[in-house]
């Protein structure tokens, strides 16, 4: 054992003997080992950001012949349903197909040419995504869409 510092017995220094020192070191190393094991496990279990995969680049959804004027199709783009509309006057638009009311997936109402949510009869404008009628509180968010040589690409920046 080391010679004790006289200041310890005078009460001016807290006493730390060798055993206590080693015990603290042991405690710290056990704690740091446990943290070192738990950190990767918790990080692993934490849901990873799906958007990290491909970051939602643009996707070829088909050609103008697949979706002729007056037609629309609901397609999965970056794991989310997107409705791609080709209006009767040849304007191609795309919107998130997730209804802004309670999250049902919208469909194309062919006869009357608008986007229809089957759950509570929400109706959206095919050109702008704006609410025509029904409970949805806000328009459908639009999705980037371009037509190149008759190929339709949707999604991406």
């Amino acid at each position, binding site marked *: 054992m080391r010679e004790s510092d006289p200041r310890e017995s005078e009460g001016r220094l807290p006493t730390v003997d060798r055993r206590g020192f080693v015990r603290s070191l042991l405690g710290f190393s056990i704690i740091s080992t446990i943290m070192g094991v738990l950190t990767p*496990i918790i990080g*692993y*279990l934490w849901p*990873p950001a799906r958007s990290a995969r491909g970051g939602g680049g643009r996707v070829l959804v088909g050609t103008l012949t697949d979706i002729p004027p007056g037609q629309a199709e609901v397609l999965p783009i970056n794991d989310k349903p997107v409705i791609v509309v080709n209006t009767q006057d040849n304007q191609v638009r795309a919107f998130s197909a997730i209804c802004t009311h309670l999250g049902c997936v919208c469909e194309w109402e062919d006869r009357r040419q608008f986007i229809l949510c089957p759950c509570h009869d929400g109706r959206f404008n095919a050109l702008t995504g704006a609410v025509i009628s029904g409970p949805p509180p806000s328009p459908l968010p639009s999705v980037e869409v371009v037509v190149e040589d008759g190929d339709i690409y949707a999604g991406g920046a």
Partner: protein
Amino acid sequence: MQQKDVFYRTWPLRFWNWLDKRYALQEFLHALVDVPIPRSANTLYLGGITLFLFGIQAITGILLSIYYQPTPENAYGSILFIMNDVRFGWLIRSIHAWGANLMIIFCILHLLRVFVQGAYKPPRELTWMAGVLLLMLTLGFGFTGYLLPWDQRAFWATTVGSEIAGAIPLVGQAALNFLRGGPEITALTLSRFFGTHVLVLPVGLALLVAIHLVMVHQQGLADPTEPTGSPDDLLQEGAEGSRVGGSDDH
């Protein structure tokens, strides 16, 4: 002495005492842990390391099963996802892969140590037999796990590996069909390998390890020094190496 008192007043210890009063845990732990080890025994810790690696495999394997998808369409993609997108996914999968190889290595080294020291001799025949089965199960883990990533190597190594079963006389074709869940490697093969790898083998191995260790516990470790092993010595050694003989002073 004073330090001890402080220690016993901490709440984990008090909780322990509370439990101990009710369930006599101290006694139970003593029975579990009071195994005298012959000084001459030298296990090189190989069995224990194998056990530890099995624990690592269990933990990392459970973690992998959280993101892995056992279908031909999704298996490969889910492994890519684990490697690239899940935090520490590459680490967990790599530890699982290394742990598999190391577990087999240490299992074989453990077998060699038992062999060289003659520790399989009476009265430890059944411990040895359980051990051989453990090695087979461990190899089974390797075989079934190898297919799961569903990459080219996995697919073709399993094709060739399971083809071997077809060469067994008489029952070859049946064995092959049973192994693959049909004549070819398909989605059925993948799901039965997955089920075997994550349920059948772990449960089997855990039970067998428990049996293996209970047998070791009841007999104590073998003393590898001479002279021993003759019928007389067998009795003598059994008494000396066992908990019963060694626990007079407890």
